[in-house]
């Protein structure tokens, strides 16, 4: 089982290849879309590369869930309700929702996809 740092370095290399970014930009708290410029099609590319580089299987929607918030009860005034936050926690157990929960604006959901989230996800897969 590789160390946390080893996983981070490999995730870093994965994102350098997938997104064509510089290694120094791939910090742990960098967001995939906002900071690293990932577009929707890049998410699938990242999934392919993580599978190949770590020898893991990533079922569809497990790392990057689709249609997380579909129920109208989960959103009010552009923000997630308590029910919406619970759903998000359940669907994205590897994301750090601490700061997001204080201002659960739906527009900020994309910011939950960080480099560290990928590291946490891969760590859990390798430990399983």
């Amino acid at each position, binding site marked *: 089982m590789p160390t946390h740092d080893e996983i981070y370095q490999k995730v870093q290399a994965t994102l350098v*290849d*997938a997104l*064509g970014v510089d290694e120094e930009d791939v910090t742990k708290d960098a967001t995939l879309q906002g900071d690293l410029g990932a577009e929707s*099609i*890049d998410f*699938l*590319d990242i999934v*392919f590369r993580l*599978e*190949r580089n770590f020898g893991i299987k990533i079922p*569809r929607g497990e790392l990057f869930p689709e249609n997380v918030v579909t129920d109208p009860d989960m959103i009010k005034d552009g923000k997630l309700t308590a029910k919406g936050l619970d759903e998000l926690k359940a669907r994205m157990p590897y994301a750090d929702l601490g700061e997001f929960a204080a201002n659960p604006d739906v527009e900020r959901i994309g910011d939950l996809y960080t480099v560290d989230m990928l590291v946490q996800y891969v760590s859990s897969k390798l430990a399983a």
Partner: protein
Amino acid sequence: MRWIWIDKFLEFRSGKFARAIKNLTLAEEHLHDHYPGYPVMPASLIIEGLAQTGGILVGEAGGFVEKVVLAKIPRAEFFGVACAGDQLVYEVTLTDLRAEGAVVEAKAFLEGELLADVEIFFAHLDNSRANQIFGPKNFVFTQQLLGVLDLAKAQSRAKEAEALAVSSTSPAPVNGQSHEAPPS
């Protein structure tokens, strides 16, 4: 002009590998513009040929049920140029295939030397969504392009029939280059 950037399949192993050729001729308009007096195949069209070879490989692996589009080219390296009169050989290996899309490693060779090394990423589009956003002309494989694969199948069947006819009349081995048969 037809948007077909491969001339013929030499080999087609379902879900694994495809080899196709592209002959460059001065009858192609683009060579006169790229560049005047120095006709070389544009790198983007070499990538297109590799993507057509790979797109058919990916599409065929799913029985052409999925609509396949070229989604991304994460890496493309070129080591030379191809001129009028040259024949490019495209070799494409399917490295990843899943419900959402596929990745291929694609290489172009000129006289046995590596000319281009490209990674191509294809996405599978949901049928209903695809119909709204893309017309059939946007797809990696059109009916015209699929005709190249059909032709290879027909040629392969003809060769098999010929080999069978020769072997039934003579015990001598059949001469000539052997190609692995495309799926029938």
